[in-house]
């Protein structure tokens, strides 16, 4: 593994190794001194061309917990054109002696371009509606901690699949690890050809709610035109939101997840979001450990012999 760009072609043993190592790093984060010297002397750069709080902070925290230095680049509000300027920016950061770049970009495929241009590992921190692989790792880690394994679990991913890089990354990681994934949403929010993926599709959350182990709620993305493709937020909440009534129909051990930031009252009700079976904060905590595993894998010496 030279980069982490997508979950689509990660095989099961690589995923499991990353999750095993993330478990080790999760333990490090609970120590009185939550820091190890593994990446001392390395520099991790975050290049985020799109707003982000948790992903960027999480990567920076992960790098620092491994004793790496961090630098960050933000285009701010100025318009940065694609193509040449992305390349120049990346080459400039590289020339400063950076060892790895985490990139988030609105354009699908931007991290792949960086990987071609530069001779250092690139981690995709989210590209357009395409991929967000570290989110999938932290989600799988959270599910594995709860259930021991993803094998045989039924996972419903609910909401705006069409615009969701989280869904695209989770689908591949979860099914590779042995789970069955059901996409649930209105036809306007589902991709045109879900048959291309190893998933089943439902337009009715109520028909699957009693059989699933995990309900993964996606954020309604108003910035990606979310609100224009269904009649109203209230109707969305009624048909696809995790209401207390739906929550009560879940299997007793089933859990609710959300990649954040949540729209309370839309895809998840206020009460459910605070329930012990809503693993949203565990996901955030695990995000740091999962990203430590990725950084360590890419920068911590040679790959497995």
């Amino acid at each position, binding site marked *: 593994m030279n980069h982490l760009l997508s979950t689509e072609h990660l095989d099961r043993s690589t995923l499991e190794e990353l999750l*095993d190592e993330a478990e080790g790093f999760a333990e490090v984060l609970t120590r009185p001194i939550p820091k*190890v010297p593994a*990446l001392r002397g390395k520099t991790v750069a975050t290049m985020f061309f799109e707003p982000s709080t948790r992903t960027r902070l999480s990567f920076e925290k992960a790098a620092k917990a491994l004793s790496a230095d961090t630098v960050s680049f933000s285009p701010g509000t100025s318009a940065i054109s694609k193509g040449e300027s992305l390349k120049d920016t990346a080459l400039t950061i590289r020339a400063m002696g950076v060892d790895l770049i985490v990139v988030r970009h609105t354009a699908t495929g931007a991290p792949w371009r960086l990987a071609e241009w530069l001779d250092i590992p690139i981690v995709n921190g989210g590209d357009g509606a395409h991929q967000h692989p570290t989110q999938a790792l932290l989600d799988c880690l959270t599910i594995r901690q709860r259930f021991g394994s993803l094998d045989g679990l039924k996972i419903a991913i609910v909401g705006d699949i069409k615009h969701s890089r989280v869904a695209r990354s989770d689908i591949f990681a979860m099914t590779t690890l042995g789970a069955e994934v059901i996409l649930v949403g209105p036809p306007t929010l589902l991709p045109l050809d879900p048959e291309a993926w190893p998933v089943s599709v439902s337009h009715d959350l109520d028909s699957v709610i009693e059989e699933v182990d995990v309900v993964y709620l996606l954020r309604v993305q108003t910035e990606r035109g979310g609100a224009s493709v269904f009649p109203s937020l209230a109707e969305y909440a009624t048909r696809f939101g995790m209401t207390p009534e739906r929550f009560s129909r879940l299997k007793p051990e089933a859990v609710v997840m959300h990649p954040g930031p949540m729209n309370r009252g839309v895809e998840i009700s206020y009460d459910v979001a605070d329930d012990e079976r809503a693993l949203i904060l565990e996901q955030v905590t695990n995000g740091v450990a999962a990203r430590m595993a990725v950084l360590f*894998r890419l920068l911590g010496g*040679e790959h497995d012999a």
Partner: protein
Amino acid sequence: MRQVMSTEDLRRVTTRIAHEIVERNEGTNEVVIVGIPTRGRPFADRIARVLSDIEGREITAGSLDIGMYRDDLDTRPRTRIGPTEIPENIDGKTVVIADDVLFTGRTIRAALDALADLGRPGAVQLAVVVDRGHRQLPIRADFVGKNIPTAASERILVRFEEIDGEDGVWVDQGGDG
């Protein structure tokens, strides 16, 4: 490959080292045993089992992974990060680190760094199955199963039933290993 210790040798050595630990520390009330994965772990577990018999109380060994503390992460093949589980607070305690082979001393240096991040032991001691020489750092073992002089190109293989399906120590004459 030449066998230098049998199952029975390994058992006797473990028993002797456990007794030496009790003698040196005048009991085990302030002692915590931790093994370095992979093969320090079964050694630590076995020492703990003998100690439990001697002391008449349940003593469990911990696990101290040093993968994140190595000074040669850049150059050597990656090894898997193992678990770190310390059964109790180590502040002020005597920590006995258990490992299979003492060679350059770099693993033990990393283990000392790892311990320092977990607390402040009163003392640290080292128990190894085999000391094969070739130290690169000023480190020595407190409890040694067997001193085996080796050439730098040779490999020492300590095997444990729990991991390898058999017990014993072998010397591999080197080459490809």
